[in-house]
């Protein structure tokens, strides 16, 4: 039986959700029997592959690269899961949105707080431009399922993956639906 083509992606996140994923510990060995991880920041894949069965997307859409990449991910994946509070609500990544635009954030970070050579990073084609507002993933692409948590605890990730391996959309309840 073909293994589930699983991918994980991080956008404007802290990678904490991925660390929680790794907290699955030895269950990852069982997972490998049923799922093939075709793309993840943990490995050296350059391009997001076609025909991904399920992808976990961590992080808010915070810059232009995320904005275009997540659309490519959506196009090439059957099931897209917003993975963690940043992807679901914006969370800490979106706290800068109260400043209404990207410039005050860049000025504060790279000019006011710089120790030496204050300069807003700018290299066309290399440094992606910050979006004016950091967005939850579902504001950019349709999302099939939302995994809450900051980070989602490993057992919540496992229950979600087990549902996917069974060919179902996950359906968690109760305290599994708690933010934070």
């Amino acid at each position, binding site marked *: 039986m073909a293994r589930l083509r699983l991918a994980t992606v991080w956008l404007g996140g802290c990678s904490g959700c991925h660390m929680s994923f790794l907290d699955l510990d030895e269950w990852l060995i069982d997972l490998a029997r049923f799922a093939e991880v075709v793309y993840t920041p943990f490995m050296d894949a350059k391009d997001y592959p076609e025909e991904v069965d399920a992808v976990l997307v961590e992080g808010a859409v915070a810059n232009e690269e995320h904005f275009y990449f997540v659309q490519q991910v959506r196009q090439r994946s059957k099931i897209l899961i917003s993975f963690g509070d940043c992807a*679901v609500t914006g969370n800490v990544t979106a706290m800068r949105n109260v400043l209404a635009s990207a410039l005050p954030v860049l000025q504060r970070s790279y000019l006011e707080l710089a120790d030496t050579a204050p300069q807003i990073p700018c290299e066309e084609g290399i440094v992606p431009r910050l979006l004016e507002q950091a967005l939850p993933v579902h504001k950019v692409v349709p999302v099939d399922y939302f995994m809450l948590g900051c980070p989602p605890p490993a057992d919540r990730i496992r229950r979600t993956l087990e549902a996917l391996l069974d060919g179902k959309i996950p359906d968690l309840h109760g305290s599994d639906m708690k*933010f934070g």
Partner: protein
Amino acid sequence: MTVKTLTINGQLVSAREDETILQAARSAGIVIPTLCYLEGLSAHGGCRICLVEVNGTNRLQPACFLKVSEGMVIQTDTPRLREYRRMIVELLFAEGNHVCSICVANGRCELQDAAVAVGLDHQRLDYLYPKREVDLSHDRFGIDHNRCILCTRCVRACDELEGAHTWDVAGRGTDARLVADMNQPWGEAKTCTSCGKCFMACPTGAIFAKGATVAELDHERGRLEFLINAREKKQWRV
């Protein structure tokens, strides 16, 4: 005091004639979600999450205010009510800046509990991202207006239990906000007695005691219940 019999969710419930639907339901073990209601404080009817369907009228009524009457038929858990409750919680999350992951009340927050109860898994509305202040001028407590849902439990606790009425609401609509005394920093509000009842009454992490970090806040609501019991029933359970 006569007893009234009514039906809630198909179940026969009896209640004293001066009780509200909310009180009658709770005595019968029926859960109606609340946010701005706190036992012992006057009802406010602001959050609208306790709305129930009453046979004979199309208008939904807040259970915290509606007095029981003989033969009343109430539904508390219909698809319409569930949708409205979810909308109310979504509106509350969109109105302020609620970042659960870094909040002192994470895990002990009634807004979070309400989100779990209505099955909120994502926000369908656009977040407002309002610019709101944090006031740390008081020496024992702080208030983070980003987390305030304007339930006014603090206003009522301070007015009705402490008698100081330090807190009140200024402004309207999305501009509405908690103010201490004459819109002063809390630390300069002369009427404040530092009793902490507003902190005990606050459902979220908006009013917090200094010294607690993420997810550590304990509102000590048991102390508020104790005070209310003492005043109303003259019982001092220790």
